[in-house]
């Protein structure tokens, strides 16, 4: 045990630090809304997210959430409304890393924009919501945290106020988001109606009381699935994603597709494992809820990859690829019906972490291209490697890693996900279909990812470009992400351990 004992609420520190940072930035904004003191604003955001990261890592290392005499065990906050365990810390780490990368990159990206303080304040506020989702342990806190994430996101997508695409995308995102939220909150009310509880453990304990209302509870669960699908951009709740990612400033696209998606998944992992233990739930609702995730996983990865294959717009391609990756991670939930379900879920979480680096990096490269004024299509990217070899090399790393080519991190996490799925298929042969879909879609994805690498490295530029500048912040963020995508390979063991512990924390 530690020498001094922190109060319980301190366990939420990673999220609270983000909240504090957001308020500080909001304070700047109130004092001087037109401030263009970029170093101060971006610096505050970066410092806040790094502090959050540091605390989360420290907690993990110190043993918060881990059981055993030397460790602190799982910390319940506010009578179980929040919970800080391995799973929560793992996702807080992912979220703060992505937030830090996005904030660093935004320093250059927002060079000539007004409302800088507002921007950073919204980003950190959204990150606060995501961190809170990771720790939420009741449907109420989950819903509040979810809205705390969503509302700043809508505003962020539309923040380029003079850009039609940005504003239109923001509105569409908001409309679909409102619809999804409605479905989600309706689902919450149905679950409450059936079980009489909102706290997740209490729901699990009261499942038996649902009795006659099995169908009602099933519908509620399915609506919760809908809310998750919206947050993770899974079919059929994915329609906002291509539009929002394309219209939003590229760093925000990175933020939404990496951090926001991760938040959606932690929500799903926690709600479905804690509140709806498979056997007890099946007994009440008459059907195994993993079936929904099997269907969603297959449809999502297939639709995402197929739609990405013929895109001409790079950002749209990445948007669909991000949908495809959501499909891969959904396997982690689909496999929960098996003995080795926790291993598959661990592999899925690992994929999310690696994805956090490679996908953020890819979007940040697009941000760099936008910063240079390069057009949106593949053809516009032709021959960029001549002017920007380092950034283009980093982009090639992201693309190959996303496609799952060795030796990059994306290969290892996808490989692990694949092998664990195949192993788990011993209990449920449906998983073989998922594994096959994973392989087929990865193969297809190599096609469109390598198209971009080909454009960068092999094609000749269509028109002559001037010498390109090298914005420090964007470069730093991209290179950091690329390095992490590569070196995550030797560091894989501790990450695997962390992810497996996180998975084990919620699965039986």
């Amino acid at each position: 045990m530690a020498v001094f004992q922190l109060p319980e609420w301190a366990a939420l520190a990673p999220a609270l630090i983000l909240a504090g940072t957001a308020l500080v930035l909001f304070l700047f904004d109130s004092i001087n809304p037109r401030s263009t003191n970029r170093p101060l604003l971006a610096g505050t955001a970066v410092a806040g997210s790094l502090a959050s990261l540091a605390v989360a890592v420290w907690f993990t290392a110190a043993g918060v959430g881990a059981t055993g005499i030397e460790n602190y065990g799982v910390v319940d906050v506010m009578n179980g409304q929040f919970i800080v365990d391995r799973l929560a810390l793992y996702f807080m780490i992912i979220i703060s890393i992505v937030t830090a990368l996005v904030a660093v990159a935004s320093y250059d990206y927002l060079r000539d924009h007004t409302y800088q303080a507002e921007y950073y304040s919204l980003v950190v506020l959204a990150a606060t919501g995501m961190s809170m989702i990771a720790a939420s342990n009741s449907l109420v806190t989950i819903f509040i945290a979810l809205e705390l994430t969503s509302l700043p996101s809508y505003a962020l997508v539309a923040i380029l106020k003079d850009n039609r695409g940005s504003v239109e995308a923001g509105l569409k995102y908001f409309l679909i988001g409102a619809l999804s939220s409605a479905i989600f909150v309706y689902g919450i009310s149905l679950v409450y109606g059936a079980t009489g509880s909102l706290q997740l453990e209490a729901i699990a304990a009261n499942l038996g009381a649902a009795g006659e209302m099995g169908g009602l509870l099933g519908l509620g669960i399915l609506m919760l699935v809908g809310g998750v699908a919206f947050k993770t951009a899974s079919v059929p709740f994915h329609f906002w994603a291509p539009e929002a990612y394309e219209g939003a400033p590229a760093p925000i696209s990175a933020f939404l597709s990496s951090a926001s998606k991760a938040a959606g998944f932690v929500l799903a992992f926690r709600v479905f494992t804690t509140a709806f233990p498979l056997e007890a739930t099946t007994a009440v609702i008459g059907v195994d809820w993993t079936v929904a995730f099997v269907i969603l996983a297959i449809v999502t990865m297939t639709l995402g990859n197929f739609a990405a294959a013929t895109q001409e717009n790079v950002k749209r391609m990445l948007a669909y690829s991000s949908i495809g990756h959501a499909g891969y991670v959904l396997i982690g939930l689909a496999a929960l019906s098996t003995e080795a379900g926790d291993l598959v879920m661990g592999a899925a979480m690992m994929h999310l972490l690696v994805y956090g680096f490679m996908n953020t990096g890819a979007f940040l490269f697009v941000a760099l291209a936008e910063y240079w004024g390069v057009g949106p299509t593949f053809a516009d990217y032709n021959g960029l490697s001549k002017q920007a070899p380092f950034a283009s090399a980093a982009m090639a790393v992201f693309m190959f890693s996303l496609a799952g080519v060795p030796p990059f991190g994306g290969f290892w996490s996808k490989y692990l996900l694949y092998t664990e799925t195949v192993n788990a298929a011993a209990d449920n042969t449906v998983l073989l279909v998922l594994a096959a879909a994973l392989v087929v879609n990865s193969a297809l994805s190599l096609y469109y990812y390598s198209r971009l690498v080909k454009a960068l490295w092999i094609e000749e530029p269509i028109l002559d470009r001037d010498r390109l500048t090298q914005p420090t912040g964007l470069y730093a963020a991209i290179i950091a992400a690329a390095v992490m995508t590569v070196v995550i390979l030797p560091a894989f063991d501790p990450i695997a351990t962390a992810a497996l512990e996180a998975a084990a924390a919620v699965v039986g």
Partner: protein
Amino acid sequence: MAATATGPFGFAPAIAVLPLVAFAVTLLFGKHLPKKGALPGIIATAGSLLISLVMFAAVGGGNAYHTTLYEWTAGAAASETGAEGIAFTFGVLIDPLSALMLVIVSLVALLVHVFSLGYMNAEGETGLPRYYAELGLFTFSMLAFVFADNLLMAFMFFELVGLCSYLLIGFWFRTESAPSAAKKAFLVTRFGDYFFLIGVVAIAATFGTVGFAGEASFVTAAETAIDDGATLFGFDAQTWVTITGLLVLGGVLGKSAQFPFHTWLPDAMEGPTTVSALIHAATMVAAGVYLVARMFGYYALSPTALSIIAFVGGFTALFAATMGVVKDDVKQVLAYSTISQYGYMMLGLGVGGYVAGVFHLLNHAFFKALLFLGAGAVIVLMHHEQNMWKMGGLKDKAPVTYYTFLAGALALAGIVPFSGFWSKDEVLFDALIIGLEQPIILAAYAMGLVAVFFTGFYTFRMVFLTFHGEPRSETAEDPHPVGWPIKVPLIVLGILATVTGLVNMAPVAKLLDVEITFLEFWLDGEYGSVEGLTYHAYHETVAFEEGVIGGSETTTMLLSAGLSLGLALAGAFTAHTLYNVPEPTRHMQKLGGAYSLLRRNYYQDEYQVWLAEGLTLPVARAADRFDQTVIDGLVNGTSTVSLFSSSWVKRIQTGIVTNYAALLVGGFIALLLVLGYLGGWFA
């Protein structure tokens, strides 16, 4: 370090390493060296010979050596016989057999190197550094193969030997025929090696070891398995030993040019004659028979495998000898004689005559090297004319070549007291005594015996046509002189071909009752040996019964010896009457229809070409068509379908948010219907 620990044996790896160094040196600096790289090779092979002799003396002094040099991988592997793990290593095994073979190989290699000075350098060949480098690599591979202590290492160097002969046969790669012959040699032997490789894997998987000697050898493991009555891979242990032994034999038949894999060898005459000498006497072709001798303990466990070896050997001996009768090219005659003689060795080993087989291998190495180098000398004399009908009368113009060649010919024909007589007689005697109890061996023996007549005939036909009579061309009247680099190896080999037979005069020993069968004592571990690898151990394992004629072993032996000597002399005499005349003619009509059958080599090439062109090629074409249409069609079709469906899927994203809301709700309801139906919510 190793040398001090284990006496002279510590130097054993150097035997192979020296030629490897010569290879590297010649390859890198050959152009700048005097004699274009011959010297490093000569020095290295002389060094190898010296160390081999030291090894030989050490084995003679009652020692043997078996050690592991390097283990490249080891791991746990469950094998069929229950061995826990398996290790793949490089190791050295110096026992009487390998010590003897090392001396033979390094001696022949040294003489070939020296001879090359006269044959290649003096004739102004280009590409000599390449030639000497390849010779060095060839020697290295063979020597390492000889002292290999396990089957996998043997296989690796076996393959290297094959590669080197490919390179050397195709040395004159700008001609049309040499590259083709090289490819043929490589492919035909490779075909056999596929079976060998499968055999290696099978043995490793069965016994969990690939070692030749000691407690942890696959031979011992196989013996234990047979004694225990174990079942291996669903077969009776002995059957399985037969199967794996025959798989390994595939490689042996290919390398030793035994029927039906013999077709590459006559073509391989396209290489320089020195290379032919090395290939036929001590390396490539010898490797096959040596492998059988090396793992003889394994074959000894399976009478079926032995019978097959014996029968194939006897058949090949006769088969090749008949073809040698009608050849015009001096090197072709020798090529068929090689096939035939290796047939005898296989016959000897196949009837359990381990000493006889090895004895013939030893004698053949010397007299065949001699004959090839002699033929090389003749070719130099004749300004690179190889057709015997254009020669004649060289006897007086090149006496050294003539007399040494004659010694080789007498040894090959098996005329007493030249070396070939003693070993061939012993092979035939061993075959006869087993054959009296085993009809199939008797058939093999009969074929071997008949082949003796043909051997005598073609050998002396060659001698008479080449050296006797009147010169039949201008070059034959005025031959090119040959120098000492050619004469010295001929003289050394001439002496060896004459006297090596004396090391194991079994009939004399029997008659006079004296102990002079030194080779038998040598191989039987009277001096130094490795446990289990002795003639006695093998002899006890072999399950053949022996019979005698007239109730006495001596009578049988005399009868056998008399018969084979008589037939050899009859063959030689026939050749004498037909060809030892001033103006010999071809005598084709006497053979009638058989002539063209023999000239075309029993249509062996034709049927193998048919196999390639008539069978393999159509199958390959069909496979290619399948690949081009079905496989590629599937692949291309997949991408077309993918891209098409991609452009279709893309259209769902209309950009109109009300459509999205409708699709979203529609999708949700579809999911709800599926789950609700499954869960019975609507009931």
